[in-house]
């Protein structure tokens, strides 16, 4: 793999400074049939999330008598990446589905809906790195949009390392040619880490700093999540007065 300079005079190839997020657009309630939904654009990522449930879980033997089951499916559309991806779950999608589910499970009150299932479908329509964490950011909004009670919103972002510098919110090029990729998801209110992965090359000090940088990015995304949910109810006549 050839060397590629990804930082020029402190600026990244897309003009961002190392601690800057890509432009984000986040909208709640975009699908008619799903119980809850959200759409996110982050850089060139275009990801749509639908939530169904809680609904009765079939087959019966999969039901848990005291709580709801959470299922999550992360899928990339065949046209979402340069090299067409064969439809169907591959090993990467299976692992991502698992860690995303685990990132969201802790904010749900699963005991409120025994014997039922809540399904989260994350569809990556266009991919530009950081899809699993952008999916989590949108999925939290979709869960709230469905009216499913949650403790907190979970937002996620990837931190990477390019030319030895830690950068926030990797894009595809930085992910491919960089030295590390660390997706992190965190609850907005009490900053609990619910997803953390890393692959690459990080010293112990870099790891610590990367975690701090990721948490800052997640906080910014959390503000956007709250806005997206409020926005859904602000465009109708006569605001409520106390």
């Amino acid at each position: 793999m050839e060397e590629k300079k990804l930082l020029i005079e402190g600026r990244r190839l897309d003009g961002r400074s190392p601690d800057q997020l890509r432009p984000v657009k986040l909208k709640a309630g975009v699908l008619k049939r799903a119980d809850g939904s959200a759409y996110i654009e982050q850089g060139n990522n275009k990801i749509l999330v639908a939530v169904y449930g809680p609904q009765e879980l079939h087959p019966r033997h999969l039901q848990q008598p005291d709580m709801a089951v959470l299922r999550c499916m992360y899928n990339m559309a065949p046209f979402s990446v340069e090299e067409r991806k064969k439809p169907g779950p591959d090993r990467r999608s299976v692992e991502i589905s698992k860690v995303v589910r685990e990132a969201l499970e802790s904010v749900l009150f699963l005991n409120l809906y025994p014997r039922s299932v809540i399904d989260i479908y994350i569809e990556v329509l266009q991919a530009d790195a950081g899809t699993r964490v952008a999916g989590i950011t949108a999925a939290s909004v979709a869960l709230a949009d469905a009216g499913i009670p949650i403790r907190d919103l979970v937002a996620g972002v990837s931190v990477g390392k390019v030319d030895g510098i830690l950068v926030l919110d990797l894009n595809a090029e930085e992910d491919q040619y960089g030295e590390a990729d660390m997706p992190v998801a965190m609850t907005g209110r009490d900053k609990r880490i619910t997803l953390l992965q890393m692959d690459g090359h990080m010293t112990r000090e870099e790891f610590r700093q990367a975690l701090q940088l990721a948490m800052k990015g997640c906080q910014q995304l959390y503000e956007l999540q709250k806005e997206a949910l409020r926005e859904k109810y602000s465009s109708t006549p006569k605001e409520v007065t106390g």
Partner: protein
Amino acid sequence: MRIVHVPNRALVVPGELLAEGDLRAGRGAYKEGQKIFSSVVGLVERGEKEVSVIALEGCYEPRVGDDVVGVIVDSHMYGWIVDINSPYMGDLYAQDLLSKVDVTRVELSSYLKRGDLIFAKIGEVTSLRKVKLQARGAGYGKLKGGRLVEITPVKTPRVIGKRQSMLSMIQSVTGCILKVGQNGRIIIMSEDEKKISAITEALYMIEREAHTSGLTDRVKVFLEKRLKEDGGEKASD
């Protein structure tokens, strides 16, 4: 000591701090330590001893005493399985619909069959969320005729209104009876297409604007206008 951080009827999102101290967390909220947070997107409701959030979205969670509109999906030896627009199915036993019934002698499908609509009360909800329905008594049982409209279940209280204000208004302005199920299903008891269409649009308007004030008056104005017109013009948002 108690501090409430948000005004009544404020729009909140999950995780927002609502109050602290000597208060209970009601529906749509949860308490951690001394702090109460919202768990849903909705409007804050401050009570005497508790703070809750009226959700603006959500599935129907069966509660004892609620009236619901159900659809028969299956029958068995002792009764019927009823879809009540919830993650949980309702059970209607023959003796909770008919008096003095001998299930071995009677052909249950002659009373209710798949696809029939019923108006019932939630009699019991177990911890496993088995829901037992009651359909005896005046006003309950099989619904003959009428048009079904479905809205988000959590907005049905708005269709009824404080002290039945919204529902009475609709019924008196249109001259139609509405059977309102807490599960988001409403039956318009009428054959008049013009009235059905007007009421249906009014119901969707309530669903869209449930979180605003002055709604009852706006709906009244809309209905009176629509019923005067000939032919159907769409309601303006």
